[in-house]
């Protein structure tokens, strides 16, 4: 806990340092010692330490930018307790979040920004979630889902997975038809991402079969999967999806580069065509395709990754948390893109932890829990209650399919 520094002329007075640190920790009513090592603490407590570091300097304002992104529900409660006590001490809190629930839980006033512009300043008590979302998109989320133009012509089974076993995945079987949007719901750690990574060859597949367009295939590496017509948009866009320092163009052409080579050299004209097509089709907002991808917003980065995979003309597109950390405007665009892709007879798999999203976009929803599929629901029958019941099957007494 020596991350809270106090210099004492030349040598560090560790006793005083620990005492001062402990005082702050006690003031925040946190259950660890000042001598604990920060890395041994949970992410939530590490974040508390950051807050205490800021607090020590007696600030008038503390700004939080999406502080709950990596916290569990219980940890969020602790964080909110702290924010509340900071408020009591007269500190002004600026809280940036895209999670509506939190905004209403802890704020007094809300400022809505859209596309870098001020939209409206509201009193939290006098507004509601729908009102804010309407200002963010110009429409209601419910309307967005109702107005999606969906695909109603499903084709044959394009992907079939039989008894897949991998790390954290215990016997998963399912089928996906061409033109279908198949949702994977479940709690964090249910094995959804691991299932998809094993199918895609990103992680080892211990046993089980993957059938693509009626043929058993062996996928050892992602390059095999790509060649066979699979595409995977990973969950962590920043660390696993984008190459931030490279241009939008280079990011889009990445997966199909082998097909753009003429006489050993990359055909620049063909590459620019592919990139411009992606930019147009997915409405990527960038002045030109040579701009570095890292300089675009999260929503446009995600659309660029989508463009990368669409250029490869996949038979199956797997989207892992496709709207995580993305503004509501881009979200609604991505929902329509997903439906458009299903119309092109691409089989789309959507993993999402947002229940409204999964219920709004998917034709059929599989629920996973503890590495197994515990339930299957069609969109018409889906309610938050049934999905959560399946998602927590293990805690509710092993209610199996």
């Amino acid at each position, binding site marked *: 806990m020596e991350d809270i520094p106090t210099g004492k002329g030349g040598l560090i007075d560790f006793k005083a340092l620990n005492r001062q640190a402990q005082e702050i920790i006690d003031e925040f009513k946190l259950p660890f010692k000042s001598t604990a090592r920060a890395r041994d603490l949970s992410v939530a407590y590490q974040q508390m330490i950051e807050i205490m570091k800021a607090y020590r300097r007696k600030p008038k304002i503390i700004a939080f930018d999406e502080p709950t992104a990596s916290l569990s529900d219980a940890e969020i409660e602790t964080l909110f307790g702290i924010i509340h006590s900071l408020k009591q001490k007269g500190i002004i809190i600026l809280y940036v979040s895209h999670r509506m629930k939190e905004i209403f839980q802890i704020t007094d006033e809300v400022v809505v920004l859209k596309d870098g512009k001020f939209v409206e300043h509201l009193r939290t008590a006098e507004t509601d979630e729908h009102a804010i979302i309407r200002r963010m998109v110009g429409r209601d989320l419910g309307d967005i889902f109702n107005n999606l133009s969906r695909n109603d012509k499903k084709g044959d089974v394009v992907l079939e997975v039989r008894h897949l076993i991998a790390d954290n995945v215990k016997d998963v079987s399912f089928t996906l038809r061409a033109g279908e949007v198949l949702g994977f719901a479940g709690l964090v750690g249910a094995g959804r991402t691991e299932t998809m990574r094993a199918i*895609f060859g*990103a992680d080892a597949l211990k046993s089980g079969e993957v059938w693509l367009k009626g043929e058993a295939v062996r996928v050892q*590496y*992602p*390059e095999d*999967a*790509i*060649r066979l017509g699979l595409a*995977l948009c*990973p969950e962590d866009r920043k*660390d*696993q*999806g*984008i*190459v*931030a*320092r*490279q241009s939008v163009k*280079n990011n889009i052409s*990445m*997966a199909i*580069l*082998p097909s*753009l*080579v003429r006489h*050993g*050299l*990359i055909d620049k*004209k063909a590459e*620019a*065509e592919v990139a*411009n*097509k992606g930019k147009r089709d997915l409405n990527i907002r960038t002045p*030109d395709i040579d701009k570095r991808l890292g300089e675009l917003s999260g929503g446009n980065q995600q659309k660029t990754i989508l463009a*990368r995979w669409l250029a490869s003309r996949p038979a199956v597109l797997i989207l892992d948390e496709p709207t995580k950390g993305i503004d509501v405007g881009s979200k609604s665009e991505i929902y329509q893109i997903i439906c458009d892709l299903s119309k092109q007879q691409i089989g789309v798999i959507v993993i999402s932890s947002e229940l409204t999203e999964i219920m709004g976009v998917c034709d059929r929803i599989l629920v996973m829990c503890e590495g197994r599929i515990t339930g299957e629901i069609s969109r018409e029958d889906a309610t938050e209650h049934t999905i959560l019941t399946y998602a927590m099957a293990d805690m509710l007494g092993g209610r199996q399919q």
Partner: protein
Amino acid sequence: MTQTKQTLKQENPNAGLSAIVTRFFKSEKLGLLLALLLIILVFQALTGGKYLSQANLINIMIAMAVVGLVTIGESFLLITGKVDLSPGSVAAFSGVLAAILLNQGLSMYLVIPIVMLLGMGIGALNAFLVNKLKLEAFIATLATMSIFRGMAYIICGGKAVFLNDKSFLTFGAGRLFGIPIPVIIFVIIFAFFMVVLSRTRFGRNVYMIGGNAVASRLTGINSNKLLLKLFMMTSALAALGGCIMSARMSSGQPMSSEGLEFDAVTAAVLGGVAMGGGIGSLGGALIGLFIMQGFNNGLMMLNVPSFWQTVSRGLLLIAALSFDFLRNRRSKLK
């Protein structure tokens, strides 16, 4: 097809000469070229015009050839976020081995390929340590640097191996159309790899892996294979450099090329190749080479003691990087 061409033109209205001019002024290489120009002007003035003489320019190019070959490999590796510390040792080992083989009566047209193939083997060893044993490239090649420096001494018993193979000595000292053969070799190889890095899929993948290795893997780019090729290429170029060294010194010297890799990394970094990976170009590295060698040569002409030359090279590196840092910060603020 024609329709896309039109849209392309629309989206890029200031194509043609003006675009080239703006691109030049926005280019990261502008600062570097200015620095190089400054160095040239200062030394030209201080040496009373002898600096830019044809004879001296050729001196600079000769000094550049060997370190330049290694700079190619180091630039590729630095862009992927790796580094190779062994080229100096590989060059010495290869140079001594070439001398021994030539003294056995083997033809240089056999010896040079053999030595370069062995170099590739050493590169494969480096890649094995990095890819399979998951060692940091810095540590792995620190180990092979030590191993092959030792091997260089062992195979010759610690003594220089003198050479009198005529054709091999021509390889080091001969000229074609007035240009030294090592310089011609360097220019051809450099031009080849410039195209490889900027225009081929292989080169693109170097940038992609350096920019985001995980995303590259998930997009089907095999980084182990690529690193294997890069380490093999770097060591082979170092081995060729070692042969040139031996030919120029008419002997295989086990202590030669000490610190060659650091000169190569310095030149690459001076030329804007980022140590963090993902950024840089061979064009930049070439300017970096010119700056470094031009600076060294200028100090030599002014009879600055060689120890001070070493000191000033360090100062030059710091100056170049702080300039770059300030420039980047300003452009970020914009």
